């Protein structure tokens, strides 16, 4: 059976970080899942390009081992609150990550 991101995380959230960035917090469920998946290629910049149209060069990753989580941020393709705004605080953006296949 395919393992999806939601199977190995206890908490996933998304939020705008200022008007030009979106940030995702992936809290893994336990140290084993953090060790095994935090650096998984399926969670690389290409994923954010594919799902959100992000420039892969503007995707940043920050593992935080103490909290068994990884933070991933990307530059939005349009500014917060602009005329094409679809998610002011990016609070729903995490949904697209839930079913990302890991193995």
């Amino acid at each position, binding site marked *: 059976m395919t393992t999806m991101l*939601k199977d190995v*995380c*206890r*908490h*996933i*959230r*998304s*939020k*705008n*970080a*200022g*008007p*030009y*960035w979106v*940030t995702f*917090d992936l809290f893994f*469920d336990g140290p084993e899942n953090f060790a095994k998946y935090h650096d998984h290629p399926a969670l690389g910049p290409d994923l954010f390009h594919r799902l959100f149209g992000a*420039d892969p060069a*503007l995707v*940043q990753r*920050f593992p*935080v081992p*103490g*909290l068994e*989580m990884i*933070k991933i*941020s990307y*530059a*939005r393709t349009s*500014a*917060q*609150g*602009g*005329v094409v*705004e679809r998610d*002011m*605080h*990016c*609070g*729903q953006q*995490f*949904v*697209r990550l*839930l079913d990302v296949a890991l193995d």
Partner: protein
Amino acid sequence: MLDGPIKILVPTGSLGAGAREDEVRHGIVAGAHAIATDAGSTDSGAAYLALGISKNNRGSVKRDLTILMKAAAAAKIPLIVGTSGQAGGDLNLDWTRDIAVEVAAELGIQPKIALLYCEQDKALLKARNAAGKIRPLPPLGPLEDASIDACDHIVAVMGPEPYIAALRAGADIILGGRTTDTAVLASFALMKGAHAGAAWHAAKVAECGAQCTVQPSGSAGVLISIGDDGFQVEPLNPKNRCDPHSVSAHMLYENANPFVLTEPGGVLDVTDARYLPVDDRVVRVSGSVWTPKPYTMKLEGAGGGRYQTIMLIGIQDPDVLSRVDEFHDRMLAALYERTRKTMGLRDTSSTSRCAYMAGTPCRATARRPAPHRPGKSAFCSWPRPTARRGRRRSPRPATPTSSTSPSSWTRNCPATASPFPRPTLIAAPSTSSS
């Protein structure tokens, strides 16, 4: 060397969000040297800067200012407010000043009030831009003069220096224009010579008030105590607590980078910070590093322009969608509760309120919200029920009432009182100048 830690009472995450008199009293008794709070954010869009209006309503801001000005005057300690009136533009600041003057008259006090304006002259900015003194923040491209012209108001985000100057000049109350949240909270401790890394990091942890505590929905503020080599943080509500996880996790919140924070005169790096419990409700943090850098100020500009007047709301969260009726009922009940509280209404029949409030057909069975689950207030998240808790329970939609976070779902949702009196939203480039 300090004689002892510098204690800053941070009553709420945003002036007008609901400071609590009992918590403020607790912080004063604990020996607070100053009260400091932020009063704004860019989070809700550019309209507040473009139009010079506040998001928090006048009554809420006046209520909080009354509590804080009364406490500060009685304790003879300064009250420091940054990013006045949501956006920190000159109009936003003047609006806040008028309320403070009114409150002072009502309380019968005569505080010395410092006003820190930070709006910028367009001709000056164009000259600086032509001289290569303004550079874009990624992902933006170069700043064009046309963008400067399109703005109605442009602010430069201040650091702690103007606050320190005002404190040294003997201000009892400081009302600042646009300022980094951290600079507002760190200014007093920095002036007193506290450890710079600790002062900035403590300010970052406390910027959203009780957001860094275990039960953010149960209280409003925190007390930070900044010493020679670290700081401590504790909730102002004696029943709430901080633990190393709640404090360290706050660096994640709405930051693109969880370790490094760029400020006007330097950079805070918390990569090597250590978070240790002092007791069951106080956390001590050390190892935060402040590195001075050439001084830069971020520019934020906004102007009125094209706008949309209809908002269509979609929910993608699968957990909410699977129980959308329950979500609807809980949200409605939460809105009634908030309306009742705000307007001081008695608890009457849900049905009649429903018809009156919504103005559209709606179910007559609106239930009260179920008790809030502490620590799970973020609607914009996906908590998976874990087997480790010993029982399975299906995730349920959070109740919007109890979230105090700036990212809270209620601000996002047009079903609540709209934060946009006139929804004019067009973001102008924000740049950094040196």
